[in-house]
């Protein structure tokens, strides 16, 4: 299937150590800028769907605002319960999402390939 690129944000919109939730088509993404790199993962916690952008980022760890599950923003890896690793309710896995978006790193403006 042919992919298409959608502009989701400008790099200047996210400062180092910040997170921002953006929309790529119908898909909500969490963009993270940490140590000069950009990362993208699913915007919602795999536990009960809280917006991770409203959580707290410390290094590579984001703590979910609702029930404090913790994920590695650079890999999507589940670090602390209550969530489990992946969420069957999501139409995609975190890892897949990240690989789709990894190439956003250090561009002037960020696009998601859908």
């Amino acid at each position: 299937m042919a992919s298409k690129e959608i502009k989701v944000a400008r790099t200047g919109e996210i400062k180092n150590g910040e997170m921002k939730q953006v929309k790529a088509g119908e898909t909500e993404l969490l963009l993270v800028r940490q140590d000069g790199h950009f990362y993208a993962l699913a915007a919602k916690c795999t536990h009960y769907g809280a917006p991770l952008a409203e959580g707290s980022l410390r290094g590579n760890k984001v703590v979910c605002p609702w029930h404090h599950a913790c994920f590695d923003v650079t890999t999507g890896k589940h670090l602390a319960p209550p969530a489990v690793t992946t969420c069957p309710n999501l139409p995609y896995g975190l890892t897949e999402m990240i690989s789709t978006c990894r190439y956003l790193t250090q561009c002037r403006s960020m696009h998601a390939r859908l």
Partner: protein
Amino acid sequence: MTVADDSDGRVFVILGGGAAGAYAAEGMRKEGFQGRIIMVSAEKELPYDRPNCSKDFLQGNAPDEWMPLRDEAFYNSIDVELMMGSKAAKVDVAGRSLTLEDGTDVPYDSLLIATGGKPRKLNVPGHDLEGVYYLRSLEDSRRLRDAGKKAKNVVIIGASFIGMECAFSMSELDCQVTVVAPDRIPFAKKFGEEIGNLITNTHKEKGTTFKLETKVKELKGENGKVQKVLLENGETLDADLVIAGIGVMPNTYMVSGLKLEDDGGIPTDVYLYAGDNVYAAGDIAYFPFPNGQSRIEHWQVACQMGRTAGMNMAGERVPYKEVPFFWTAQHGLSLHYTGHADKFDEVIIDGSVNDQEFLAFYVKDNEVKAVMELSRTSDLAAIHHLMRERRMPEPSAIKNGKVNWPQLVNAL
């Protein structure tokens, strides 16, 4: 994740199919354990989302498919042998074997006991009448939901988490709810009087009645079915459904050969090791927390302890040192709590309890031991990082000015 390999002949048995057991199985495989993993659970269900059993699921607002943590295919894929619906009769620590009620022996090289709690039973005349319920399992929740849909007058005995979440859920099922408890203000001991009053008043506004500073003396029924609840203060309440939420006891009746605490809890070291090739995790684990040895009966703690125990059984040596966390949902109040404070000298409120927007800091010996929030989720997530790294500010700094919590984390 790693799967089993015949070259590793070891057998790890997980007794219990709750949060701790489920996370332990995954922790073992993540650490590369290639022997057999057998999960033995008295419940028929695969590990499920127990916190929801008193909330949305009980109200009929959560579909069945939300409840399992993982499906059977997942456990097959990581080679976890499931023995669901199997009750343990005896754990013989010296003989390294578990005996099931049907007589089957399950020998092990290493055992995780993660049997959780069992509800304390009422000890008053009429306790065995039809219409008296306890809530612990998904099956309990289904039965209670069906009963709640038909019930009119519900009496809840106990005003702690299970009691008050049941009060909320039964009220959502359009029942007339009365809560009976010995407390003067529910949750005052745990959260402080001001927040205890907020929670209680919120229930009252939704039509729930409280009978406080009294206890149930007797349950009366007709044709074996409960009809009246008699209180020690002389009052009589109509009831076609009674729910007792009066705490849980460690479910360790089957264990012999290990030294247990008086309440049946199993003491562990920081690695969740109880001795003699046995680990313990979750509600039953008497763990050496920084504030002293204690048991915490919360879901996230059980998940994290289970995972840590599983990893250590597989050969890791990681201490459990997470910051405890729990949440409760009652009539639109979604309260989140990080840390652990059995007792506190002072509660510092940042924000307004009346406006339902606050952080509450529980201080003991001039140290913030725990923080709870309402409508301040981002701040508490930031505080979680600070507590984990033991970088919480002094109580005086919190009292003296408004702390910008996200900024404090950024500045670390």
